[in-house]
């Protein structure tokens, strides 16, 4: 019984949100605000059960590890932001968060997204075997595989040149920046295609729910 009640509630709320497509209406506003309230509570409850209790309350009050008073105090200082007068105190914990994160980011982005990427692009320009297979049986796919590495090398170098800000895009420099933007646009086209795919899948998921779980039609 509970199952069907749940499914009917879910179906009602699904239709409330879908009603936004017709026009912004009270049903949509009702669901929108209900959603904002429930999701805020969801985050709060999980933050308590999965973070505050096991990582602060248990060690500090349960096991008496008094070192945990420092993050507790910093945390409470963060809450002072709600009171305008004493708000500046919250800058201390904010500084700790932003500092720690910047420390991680500086190394992580440089290592995984820059140095490692340059290293992975250092591949012999002419792939002898793939050219041989191309000449062996010429065809669209074998040709594409053969030119893959040159395409990547040219794409990465000209792509970086497009993001070069110290030189106006004129002459040979300007032409390579133009080739660079083409590679960027192909990358954006691919992202665009994948994103459209994602959106359709999400609609399929909801329609499947309505047809299968609610109406039991499929």
């Amino acid at each position, binding site marked *: 019984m509970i199952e069907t009640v749940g499914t009917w509630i879910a179906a009602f709320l699904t239709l409330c949100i879908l009603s*936004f497509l017709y026009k*912004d209406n009270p049903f949509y*506003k009702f669901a*929108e605000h209900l*959603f*904002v309230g429930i*999701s*805020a509570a*969801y*985050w709060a409850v999980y933050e308590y059960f999965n973070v505050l209790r096991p990582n602060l309350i248990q060690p500090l009050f349960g096991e008496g590890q008094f070192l945990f008073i420092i993050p507790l105090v910093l945390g409470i200082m963060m809450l002072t*932001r709600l009171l305008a007068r004493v*708000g500046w105190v*919250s800058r201390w914990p*904010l500084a700790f*968060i*932003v500092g*720690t*994160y*910047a420390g991680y*980011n*500086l*190394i992580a982005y*440089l*290592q995984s997204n*820059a*140095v*490692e990427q*340059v*290293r992975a*692009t*250092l*591949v*012999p*320009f*002419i792939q002898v075997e793939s050219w041989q297979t191309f000449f062996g049986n010429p065809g669209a796919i074998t040709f594409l595989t053969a030119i893959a590495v040159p395409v990547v*090398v040219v794409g*990465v*170098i000209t792509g*970086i*040149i497009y*993001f*070069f*800000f*110290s*030189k*106006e*895009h004129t002459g040979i420099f300007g032409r390579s920046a133009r080739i660079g933007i083409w590679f*960027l646009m192909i*990358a*954006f*086209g691919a*992202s*665009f295609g*994948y*994103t459209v795919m*994602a*959106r359709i899948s999400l609609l399929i998921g909801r329609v499947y729910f309505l047809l299968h779980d609610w109406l039991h039609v499929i």
Partner: protein
Amino acid sequence: MLLILVMVLTQGPIELAPPTDITAEDRPNDAGGNVVISWTKSADDGAGSDAVQEYLIFRAAQDEEFQQIGRTRKGGEEFVDATTQDGVEYRYLIKASDGTVHSEPGMSEVVVSSAQWFHAGRISMLVATLVISILILWFIRKAKRGEKLFIRRIAGLEAVDDAVGRATEMGKPIMYIPGILDMDDIQTIASMIILGRVARKAASYETPILVPCTRSIVMSAAQETVKEAYVDAGRPDAYDADKIRYLTDDQFGYAAGVDGLMLREKPGAIFYLGAFYAESLILAETGHSVGAIQIAGTAQPSQLPFFVTACDYTLIGEEFFAASAYLSREPLLLGSLKGQDWGKAIFIIILIIGILLVSFGFETIISLLSTGQ
């Protein structure tokens, strides 16, 4: 069936071949207390009688007795002992076992665990970090000393000032959406810089500026930034903290909330500057339908296609960071932008030389750049 049963029972205890060439070394580049023990599988593991089910690992300090400290499954050839004391000499002993019968033990050499002061595998990262940091700091010093640093024109940014101007002409408010990530994300911080500039322009034009936020810290930082902008523009009284509001941490609660705000306030110009995810299209589509001039900027490659197609101007990835430098002409930002440009120049040179070397068979550059674990 009976015959096989008899055959098994009459056989003596199965003889298990021991694991061979056991080596134990201090784990490199760690904070000490770790020894890595490795061996080759026993002949009866995966081959021969294939009876081996697990390996038992024993340890003995200087002249103490051997005690079991761990075991690995069938096919395992490595074990990390994370409980050693630095400076103490240990010896390890491995036995293959099928649950009841143990093989002869294989013995390792003496090993002492120690901590290293420098991670040998990360030299290339140290060089890269130092070079790029020095470049950036050096150019910042040059910029602070007022030296003229050239930056090419960024079309999207000229549109920022036009958009604020045209929104004012239409007598409509401006909406600034600083992305949905927290203050600890670099894009949100860069967005705050541009918000400061946009707010200063809005204050001088007396155009209201709405900043819906999805993170509390962003809301506070935005309130501070806009308040400072209003003070700089000589209009401290016009600053209204409630226009800079926290909606919800939930991505879609926020998108729905901002859509509602757009439909109600009908802003003339909307800025999407910061980190965006799937909600970018909901916002850009509704902003488009409200007839606002839309300028976007983010470093999220997956969202850029939508901004490119639905907005009037889009700052593509890194241009977004350059925007804060270009807009504010601030020495810090100009200097670091030039430093980054030099970084890019170095990467391009490494790529060109590297690929030439590699094409002619000199592979050393690849190991040089490795950022080993």
